[in-house]
């Protein structure tokens, strides 16, 4: 786990080492253990290292024997042992024990197809001296980040956007179309980022730069194809357990101790139980404990700790903590967010690092691939009711949704029907499952300034996303379509990024995700929908698989999505100074993104204690985070509010 950066000048002229240094210095949090550069003629590669595998021999950028290939690599190739053996059989000689050298030789052997051999999480760049080609790749599901910028003179890339914005002459401007997308979907559609001219290499894609031409290529994307033959449920469950055990075993490969995040839910508990099966060592686990009982899961965490006998540490998270660290959170997230949920993850990685751990396994990805999210259930009920809109009984099922939202539970069925509508035209939409969420989020655009509204008025975010859907998508089951939107977009752009990589790497901690092992993902994509959600029982097969491994109370507990407090974090007796500063009419006006008076009324609603809904809270978080992006990246690049 590391930070990478590089410059390729299209025209003759050597790379300025000071620029490369600037790019890597600003992301040293990703790799505090070592620093390396490779400069030759018009190419420069940089690497900030977090040493995890082959502590002595893994210095980067690394070259192969004849120095025809150079690599700078962020991430892990978990099956490097097996790929290495395969390459040795083909005559390659290794001078280190690192997975980095495996990438070099695999590229020499398989060329750009080498990525198909890898089971891992990566973002890397290889400079090929023989063909004068730069090759970049990002893992299948986008665990590790990779950004780039192309001009007629140069191609620059880095693990984080701030490395690119640190360079002289790079415009620092918000991309208003990206902002519209964030205030619709919660994420910008890659390759777009929140910043103009900065692109993201999307998950499952590779990129080449050859003779000044930049080409991107898909090498993988989620594909759902349920089996034709009937297989017994228990056989599926047994196969899944074996796969998950092996995925976990591979992810324990490390030359430093490995811990685990424990939320108290099914996924992280199962992973912790599987780690216990793989190692004889007492596992160290880490959790967040919320003061606010609405969000706290610590009783379940304690039950798992007792059951699995882990050595446990927890960090207490208060509303005030979230408000205090939020500017740092946004500095690392590099995009506006509509939820404060990344903030506690920032505190958790800090705890891990303070305990001298730098690798954790987590249960991330399970809800996406095994059908755990409430939005899947919501879509199923809406469609069931939508095909018989006159039914009086079917909409009663809406009461089964979101038990943790008391406002919703108090609604009459007539209102629930109105909120979770399934209009005839909705049934035809490729985004049927996500329409209520996206329509609700889109209403936050009421806070945009006249100038932003004028700029984005004719823009249709749905059309842009629709153009990217796979050809087979319309024929997929409703659940698979919803899963594709979650796993293909929200997972990499928000869960693994704003909540994942960025919050962990802010404190030099690497997350590893057994559920995102490509074998597990492919297995899940090949399951019948009914084994993911049986009637309205989410993650049915995973629960079956976890039967012997997870305490029954945890396995059977109602689903509680990970959430964090919002409005209360910013408005309280000892609220941080930046809140008033960023929300002041002068600041809103100078930012130019939001309407001063409209924001003023929202702020007053919070100050009066009248703002209680999801929409108001999302609006506030979205406005504050956007203002923080403006303030820390655009108006005063590098400004920091806190030292969390």
């Amino acid at each position, binding site marked *: 786990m590391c930070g990478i950066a590089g410059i390729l000048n299209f025209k003759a002229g050597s790379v300025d080492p000071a620029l490369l240094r600037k790019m890597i210095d600003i992301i040293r949090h990703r790799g505090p253990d070592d620093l390396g550069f490779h400069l030759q003629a018009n190419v420069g590669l940089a690497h900030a290292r977090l040493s995890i595998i082959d502590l002595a021999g893994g210095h980067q950028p690394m070259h192969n024997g004849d120095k025809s290939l150079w690599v700078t690599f962020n991430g892990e190739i978990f099956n490097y042992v097996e790929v290495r053996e395969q390459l040795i059989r083909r005559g390659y000689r290794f001078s280190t024990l690192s997975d980095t050298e495996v990438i070099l030789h695999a590229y020499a052997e398989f060329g750009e197809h080498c990525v198909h051999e890898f089971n891992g999480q990566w973002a890397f760049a290889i400079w090929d001296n023989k063909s004068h080609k730069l090759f970049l790749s990002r893992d299948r599901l986008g665990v590790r980040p990779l950004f780039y910028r192309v001009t007629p003179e140069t191609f620059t890339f880095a693990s984080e956007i701030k490395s690119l914005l640190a360079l002289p002459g790079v415009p620092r401007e918000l991309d208003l179309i990206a902002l519209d997308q964030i205030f619709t979907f919660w994420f910008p559609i890659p390759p777009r980022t929140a910043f103009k001219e900065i692109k993201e290499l999307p998950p499952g894609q590779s990129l080449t730069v050859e003779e000044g031409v930049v080409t991107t290529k898909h090498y993988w994307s989620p594909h759902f194809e349920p089996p034709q033959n009937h297989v017994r449920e228990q056989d599926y469950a047994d196969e899944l357990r074996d796969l998950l055990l092996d995925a976990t075993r591979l992810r324990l490969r490390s030359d430093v101790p490995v811990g685990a995040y424990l939320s108290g839910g099914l996924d992280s508990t199962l992973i912790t139980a599987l780690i216990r099966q793989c190692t004889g060592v007492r596992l160290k686990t880490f959790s967040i404990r919320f003061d606010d009982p609405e969000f706290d899961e610590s009783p379940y965490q304690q039950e798992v700790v007792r059951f699995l006998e882990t050595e446990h540490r927890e960090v207490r998270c208060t509303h005030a903590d979230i408000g205090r660290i939020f500017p740092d959170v946004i500095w690392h997230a590099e995009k506006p967010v509509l939820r404060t949920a990344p903030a506690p993850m920032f505190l958790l990685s800090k705890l891990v690092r303070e305990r001298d751990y730098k690798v954790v396994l987590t249960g991330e990805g399970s809800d996406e691939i095994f059908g755990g999210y409430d939005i899947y259930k919501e879509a199923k009920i809406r469609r069931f009711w939508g095909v018989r809109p006159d039914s009086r009984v079917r909409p009663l099922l809406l009461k089964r949704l979101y038990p943790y*939202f008391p*406002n*919703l539970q*108090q*609604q*009459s069925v*007539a*209102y629930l029907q*109105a*909120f979770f509508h399934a209009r005839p035209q909705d049934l035809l939409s490729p985004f049927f499952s996500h329409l209520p969420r996206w*329509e*609700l989020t889109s*209403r936050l655009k*009421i*806070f945009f300034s006249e100038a932003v509204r004028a700029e984005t008025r004719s823009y249709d975010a749905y059309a842009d996303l629709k153009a990217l859907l796979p050809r087979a998508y319309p024929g997929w089951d409703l659940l698979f379509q919803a899963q594709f939107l979650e796993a293909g977009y929200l997972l990499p752009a928000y869960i693994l990024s704003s909540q994942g990589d960025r919050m962990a790497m802010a404190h030099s901690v690497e997350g590893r995700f057994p559920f995102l092992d490509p074998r597990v993902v492919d297995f899940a994509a090949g399951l019948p929908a009914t084994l993911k959600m049986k009637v309205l029982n989410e993650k049915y097969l995973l629960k079956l698989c976890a039967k012997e491994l997870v305490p029954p109370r945890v396995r059977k507990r109602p689903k509680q999505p990970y959430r964090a407090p919002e409005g209360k974090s910013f408005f309280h007796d000892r609220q941080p100074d930046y809140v008033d500063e960023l929300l002041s009419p002068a600041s809103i006006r100078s930012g130019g993104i939001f*309407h001063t*008076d*409209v*924001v003023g*009324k*929202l702020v007053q*609603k919070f100050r009066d204690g*009248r703002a*209680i*809904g*999801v*929409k*108001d809270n999302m609006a506030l978080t979205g406005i504050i985070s956007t203002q923080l992006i403006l303030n820390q990246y655009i108006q005063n690049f590098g400004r920091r509010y806190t030292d969390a």
Partner: protein
Amino acid sequence: MHNYQTELRQFIVENFLFGREDKPLSNSDSLLEFEIIDSTGVMELVSFIEQKYQLELRDEELIPENLDSIDRLVRFIAQKVNV
């Protein structure tokens, strides 16, 4: 004598639209159809009515027929007050 219509309009425009009416809200416009109100919004509206007019709304009264436009709200509140 309360001017329900003015008070309700002011509450809805300030509280849900934050003062921003892209086109003026008519008294018969559906608050659901125009996406003015969400699940929390219903609760906010009910709290406002109960506090402002010293009324108690029963669960079965919380339906769009009573609450989904300024006209309906005025009619509903006037009825309740008169009872």
